[in-house]
């Protein structure tokens, strides 16, 4: 080859290398996308911007739950050199030993990353620090959002927040470890509306995870959108009043607006302040609440099945009439109770015989033993068992023995036994006499206060109910879940309700079981209950709705170990109804004596205290 022609070899090599490089570039940049994604992962760090959680207001627009800013003093330990430590400690009212300890801990965690050095700055400290913080470049104040409750009760209703569990993390991709979500109450059941949409900011980080600025000019950033506000059906004033009335008693109040199914208040006693389970103190306070022997965390209104006692007679009467074994004119005798062979169901002294209306007003036990036995021994059914099954179906249509479907988590179905349970107990051919105690709401039957209030609402509506719901509407669009508007009819015809209502209207008048109760100008339709129980004195129970026509409120009050229904439950219900129906809430009660007596009553007796083991720290 002539030497000058060797130029072409050189040019050939250049072209070849060019092609090789371009092919390699094509592979790295176009074909192999893994590098591209690795680049995004390596060089960037996603910072979540948390949205403001939705607030919860009551039916009159009063704020119940809201967010508050809390201020933490942060430090970047690496930069915390050459600053006036004494001056800062003086401002923080910390001694330097404690300050050094915290700084050392932060340094140990990560010298380059910001750590909290003073959590929840009090507001006066926050404002003071704002002025002087520029002197301490390694320190800055971070604003975080925390939940606040405008009410020191209603804790079971509102619920509390807590850190997501690993299980929930796997189920819902929305959450990241360390996120806070609703654990109980409305906070839980309306979590998806309240939580809002997270925003994110993608920042560029170097190999030390140090932020270098916005990633790709903020192309992947998104703004958070705040959670939706929830308008609850709760009447805050009534709720607080109910809690005052139940103070120092164990029990529950549930009030429902019958025409809508909206829950006006759910009172539990004992209760606790929801602000206890917020922020840093949550774990500590939760532990002590859990150990409290009065069980303040227990949601009685939704979870405790009580024997309904005589209030159950209203349901028995309705079923009896629908089944055709009872008419308003049916009369049964009562001579100090119901006697049938070895069975005796006692009754208090009243006239005899009574018709249906009077049996409710006077709450005759014997009457309902006859009614219930006639239901079970109805010749239309092949056996008592079949009749019993039919009876439970009636109960289910009243929301008994099933979940009412309230928009709160952890509801109990109450107790309604299956026929097989009685077979096991009394043998295969058990008879109506075996279960006669259920005729007056004792024995193998249990209803939650919510279910009893719902019965009052059903009777008020003359045969149907809406699923009880604590929330009225959601967000600015006032979204109402369609299930809230759906009527559930009972298996009892509307026409049978009038007699029962007439009987209930007489309960609070002279001759009725709660004759001392009543509001001038308003007819309260009610039924007292006195439930025997293995825990001591009878439970005082009262269900009611008012006014008789176009009812505005249906209520159930249970005071554990309160004695007769008329002793505590009836007055409390009476005061609640009066309060709710009065045009001006600031007006004093027409029954100041009753109010005073209820507020002062203390039925809690002696409760043992358990030492909080977490508190016990050996002094050094």
């Amino acid at each position, binding site marked *: *080859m002539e*030497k*000058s022609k*060797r*130029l072409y*070899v*050189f*040019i050939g*090599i*250049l*072209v070849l*290398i*060019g092609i*090789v*490089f*371009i092919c*390699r*570039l*094509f592979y*790295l*940049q*176009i074909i*192999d*996308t*893994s*590098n*591209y994604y*690795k*680049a*995004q992962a*390596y*060089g*960037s760090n996603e910072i979540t911007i948390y949205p403001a959680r939705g607030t919860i207001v009551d039916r009159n627009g009063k704020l119940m739950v809201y967010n508050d800013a809390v201020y933490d003093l942060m430090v970047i330990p690496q930069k915390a050199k050459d600053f006036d430590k004494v001056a800062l400690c003086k401002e923080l009212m910390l001694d330097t030993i404690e300050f050094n300890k915290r700084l050392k801990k932060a340094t140990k965690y990560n010298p380059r990353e910001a750590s909290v050095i003073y959590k929840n700055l009090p507001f006066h400290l926050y404002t003071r620090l704002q002025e002087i913080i520029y002197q301490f470049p390694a320190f800055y104040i971070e604003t975080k959002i925390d939940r606040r409750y405008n009410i020191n009760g209603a804790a079971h209703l509102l619920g509390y927040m807590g850190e997501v569990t690993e299980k929930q993390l796997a189920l819902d991709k929305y959450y990241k470890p360390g996120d806070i979500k609703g654990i109980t109450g409305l906070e839980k059941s309306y979590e998806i509306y309240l939580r809002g949409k997270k925003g994110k900011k993608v920042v*560029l*980080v*170097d*190999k030390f995870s140090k932020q*270098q*600025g*916005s*990633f*790709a*000019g903020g192309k992947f950033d998104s703004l958070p959108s705040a959670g939706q506000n929830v308008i609850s059906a709760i009447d805050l004033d009534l709720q607080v009043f109910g809690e005052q009335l139940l103070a120092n008693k164990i029990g529950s109040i549930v009030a429902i607006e019958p025409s809508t199914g909206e829950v006006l208040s759910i009172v539990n006693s004992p209760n606790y302040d929801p602000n206890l389970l917020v922020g840093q103190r949550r774990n500590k306070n939760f532990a002590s609440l859990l150990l409290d022997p009065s069980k303040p965390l227990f949601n009685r209104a939704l979870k405790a099945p009580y024997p309904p006692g005589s209030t159950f007679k209203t349901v028995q009467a309705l079923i009896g009439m629908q089944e055709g074994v009872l008419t308003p004119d049916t009369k049964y005798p009562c001579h100090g109770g119901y006697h049938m062979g070895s069975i005796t169901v006692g009754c208090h002294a009243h006239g005899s015989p009574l018709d249906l209306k009077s049996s409710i007003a006077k709450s005759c036990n014997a009457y309902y033993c006859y009614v219930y036995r006639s239901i079970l021994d109805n010749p239309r059914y092949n056996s008592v068992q079949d009749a019993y099954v039919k009876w439970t179906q009636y109960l289910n249509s009243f929301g008994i023995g099933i979940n009412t479907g309230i928009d709160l988590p952890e509801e109990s179905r109450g107790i309604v036994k299956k026929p097989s349970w009685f077979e096991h107990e009394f043998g295969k051919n058990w008879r109506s006499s075996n279960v006669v105690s259920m005729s007056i709401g004792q024995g193998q039957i249990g209803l939650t206060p919510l279910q009893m209030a719902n019965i009052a609402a059903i009777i008020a509506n003359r045969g149907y109910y809406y699923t009880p719901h604590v929330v009225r509407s959601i967000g600015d669009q006032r979204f109402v879940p369609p299930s809230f508007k759906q009527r559930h009819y009972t298996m009892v015809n509307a026409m049978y309700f009038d007699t029962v209502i007439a009987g209930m209207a007489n309960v609070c008048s002279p001759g009725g079981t709660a004759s001392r109760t009543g509001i001038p100008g308003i007819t309260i339709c009610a039924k007292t209950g006195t439930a025997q129980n293995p825990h001591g004195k009878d439970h005082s129970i009262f269900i009611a709705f008012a006014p008789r026509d176009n009812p505005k409120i249906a209520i159930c009050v249970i005071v554990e170990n309160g004695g007769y229904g008329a002793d505590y439950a009836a007055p409390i219900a009476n005061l609640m109804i009066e309060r709710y129906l009065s045009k001006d809430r600031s007006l004093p009660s027409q029954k100041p004596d009753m109010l005073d007596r209820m507020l002062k009553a203390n039925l809690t007796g002696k409760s043992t205290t358990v030492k909080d083991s977490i508190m016990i720290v050996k002094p050094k």
Partner: protein
Amino acid sequence: MEEKLHIDWLSVILYILIVIFGAINIYSANSGVEEVLKLDFTKEYGKQVLFIGVSAIIVFLILLTDYKFFNFSAYGIYIVVIGLLLVLLATGSFNKGAQAWFKIGSFKLQPSEFAKYATALALAKYLGTFDVKFEGKRNILISFGIILFPMLLTLLQNDTGSALVFGCFVLVLFREGLSGWWLILGVYLLAIFVTTILLPSIQIIIALLIICGLFTYFNRVRKQLVFLAVTVFLASSFYVLSLDFVFAKILKPHQQQRILVTLNQDVDEYYAKKSQGFSIFKFEKSKEKEKSESKRDYSYNVRQSKISIGAGRWVGNGFNNGTQTKAKLVPEQHTDFIFCTVGEEYGFLGSTLFIAIYLLLIGRIYYLAERQKNVFSRVFGYSTASILFFHFFVNIGMALGILPVIGIPLPFMSYGGSSLISFSMLLFTFLKLDANRINEISRLN
């Protein structure tokens, strides 16, 4: 009458484009994310602008110099640079550890960068001497001597990368008459080298035996070819075994790992295989222990470099928007890994255009070199083009992860005063010589 400057403007324009593009990329790799665009002479990109200014002055001076000066002073420059290298070596031995630069104020002068320039001049001068041709033992030996002497001195400074660059003069010698077989032999040896590292040496020797055996069988009539085949087999087998030995016993662990990383080998896995009789020569235990610490660095560089380039996709993130670049994830990005910035910020299209422009410049220099009328200019031109080509090939091959991590700069692009000035001197000395070629012709007329 004023003489017209017949400089090759195409080369000048390409040079200016690349230098400015280089400064832009250094700015990108060097400045903070939310930094305002301004000239800060305390930062590398600011200093690079200063170096460009210095280069411009030197280029201007070169263009003013009489072309005969370079031929006249070639040996003198060579001797001065060799002297500087020796001084460095001497002070290095005093200071415990080699140093590759002189410190002048805050700037470092790297004589090895200028050694290439001096060697090119000296080689051109020698081969351009009236009665010397690249023929005969003596001439060939002197030619290689001129190249190998500075190469050895650079190697002694532990600057392996710069030392390897001197290998590119083989290309110049090829133009001047070195047989093409030597180049083919070089490629063959490299291929054997790679397979030796990847496969058990016994397998390679058996493969060679089969190939040579078949070759012998089909050419058994021609004794010369049979002899050749046997020689090739024996030499290759010896080469394979000695490579194996050198790799296992002589190379330091970090050198082994550079090679392994380049060949896409998992270093730990490789050592595990080797210790199970993969290699005839056992790896020493102490070396194995040492490796896991240094291993990360080389693979990290290459991995980050590939991720950066890969992040660019078709059109890249745009100037100053490379996320890997801005996050400063690639070590030495403003110097040896400057191509990552191009890859990430200008994408496949930008990088391809850049490679095309760069190769066009190198090709243009080869073309200009070939049209020289005198040997001095031609050899110097081929040297210039070959030095640039070697740097370009190794540097970008390294960034793309197809060549070992050898720390040599990308001419005109990488940050560094010594390299920018020396490459500018190299290019413009040749362009001055090339301009003079036309002057010579015009004078003849």
